């Protein structure tokens, strides 16, 4: 290894950067160096313009079988569903439920699947590296139902201790809710193995893919998971849109969650019958323009190719890890061999909050805090980390800038 820039992995990087208007933004007088991609990603013009075009030339409400303008909008809307299905290799597009975000997708499973199929004494297994969105819904469910939350511990490098998972699994396990990739540690978990074992124990598996869909090829058929949740805004799409993939027969076994228009077949004041999935779970007017925009994001990512994106981001990760590793007193949190391009660290002298304020003056945007993953902080005995999370639109030079700026921090606090 060594400090090895491999720009040949993304030769058109400048062309790509030009696709993202935000990447030429300035913070004060400094160009923005955006390294907070795990929080949210910027949108390519293709997405911004798709939404604008839809809103100004094609806008209508959907799914109400009406005039042609509405039919066309419905067609585009359902077309996005098919694109998303193809993107994660879901096959049948009726397995794609549109939600308002990954958080909502997981809450949907907790309320609909959870409240129906998980009872007193049953167990749900999560891990020590989950985002709050994949912890709190289960805590609330267990408070209500009397089920028990079990936690797969993690190693010092930030990997699941699979042997402990094996021990936690039992006939009581009804659900394993696990992140595909940790938003703090970067760790990519062995989902296929987890699903296989969980299924053998009779449990369903929900995968929190909020951090993986933007960065690696997802194949739900190969994973064989029962649910997969993710957000549009983390994969270069609009805010306000998320996805819940669910196996059709599982979705079909679930009661509705939110109630309102479009999720019913017939309503009388006495009795109501419900639509089939995905409609059953899409009450009310959906985020129409955002669904259209998500379709454009999927097209954009597919055109570049997830394999190329992964390869380039891995090279950025390797470079950044080496580079930051050389900084005195900097401790990287999350060193699993199989990880996404996220570098969390603890900088002895300076608290993450101070780090971000100082490097922000250089135009560098990274996150400092607990990243909505407090149990990870506890596990590593630190209150917070500073996190640089990378995208295929980042450059090696931006990591150089980060390293330089961190050296200033050390000088201030030295």
């Amino acid at each position, binding site marked *: 290894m060594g400090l090895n820039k491999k720009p040949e992995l993304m030769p058109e990087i400048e062309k790509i950067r030009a696709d993202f208007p935000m990447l030429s933004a300035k913070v004060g007088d400094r160009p923005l160096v955006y390294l907070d991609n795990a929080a949210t990603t910027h949108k390519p013009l293709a997405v911004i313009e798709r939404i604008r075009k839809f809103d100004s030339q094609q806008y209508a409400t959907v799914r109400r*079988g009406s005039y042609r303008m509405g039919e066309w909008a419905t067609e585009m809307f359902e077309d996005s569903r098919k694109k998303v299905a193809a993107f994660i290799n879901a096959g049948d597009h009726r397995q794609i439920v549109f939600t308002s975000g990954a958080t909502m997708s997981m809450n949907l499973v907790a309320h609909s699947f959870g409240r129906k199929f998980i009872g007193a004494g049953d167990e749900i297994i999560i891990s020590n590296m989950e985002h709050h969105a994949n912890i709190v819904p289960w805590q609330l469910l267990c408070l209500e139902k009397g089920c028990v939350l079990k936690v797969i511990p993690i190693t010092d490098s930030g990997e699941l201790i699979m042997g402990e998972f094996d021990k936690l699994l039992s006939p009581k396990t009804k659900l394993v809710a696990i992140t595909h990739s940790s938003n703090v540690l970067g760790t990519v978990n062995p989902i296929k193995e987890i699903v296989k074992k969980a299924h053998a124990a009779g449990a369903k598996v929900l995968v929190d893919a909020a951090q993986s869909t933007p960065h690696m090829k997802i194949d739900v058929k190969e994973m064989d998971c029962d649910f997969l949740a993710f957000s549009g805004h983390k994969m270069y799409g609009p805010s306000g849109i998320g996805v819940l993939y669910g196996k059709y027969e599982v979705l079909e076994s679930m009661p509705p969650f939110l109630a309102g228009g479009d999720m019913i077949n017939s309503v009388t004041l006495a009795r109501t019958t419900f*639509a*089939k999935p995905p409609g059953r779970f899409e009450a009310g007017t959906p985020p129409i323009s955002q669904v259209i925009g998500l379709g454009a994001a999927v097209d954009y990512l597919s055109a570049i190719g997830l394999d190329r994106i992964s390869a380039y981001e891995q090279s950025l990760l390797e470079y950044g890890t080496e580079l930051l590793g050389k900084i005195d007193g900097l401790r990287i949190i999350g060193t699993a061999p199989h990880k996404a391009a996220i570098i969390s660290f603890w900088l002895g002298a300076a608290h993450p909050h101070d780090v971000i304020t100082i490097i922000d003056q250089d135009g560098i945007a990274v996150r400092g805090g607990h990243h909505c993953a407090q149990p990870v902080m506890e596990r590593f005995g630190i209150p917070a980390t500073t996190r640089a999370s990378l995208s295929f639109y980042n450059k090696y030079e931006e990591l150089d800038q980060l390293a330089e700026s961190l050296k200033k921090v050390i000088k201030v606090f030295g």
Partner: protein
Amino acid sequence: MSYQSDLYQQVILDHNKNPRNFREIEGHSNSCDGYNPLCGDKINIHMQINESGLIEDIAFSGSGCAISKASASMMTVNMKGKTVADARVMFEEFHKMITGVMEPQPGAHHLGKLTIFQGVREFPSRIKCASLAWHTLVCAIDKTGETTIE
């Protein structure tokens, strides 16, 4: 494309105004309630099928738009005297025709006058209106009792 020549042809308007077999069959052997939740259409089919699978009588009731009513009316006219097996074949053909999967060349199918509904393919939101009665027919044959097209 014109709604008058393609969709609302005289025959259809006539069946809408004067639907045939618009009644119930007491002591029917088969029946089904069909719903289209999108527009609130409801079609109820009653059938009298004998042991050898012959449709001796068929009737419909309910409410719906001109397309669904005319489609139900013309379907019942066509079904009487056919076998259950014939009915299934025609359902398939009708469905393929209105969704544009099959061109209704003369002689290549059993639809006869029902080809008048081929114009529906130009009006995607109306396809379900034309097919509601047919889905309900299959449901009645299968003795499922209730069906919903979504």
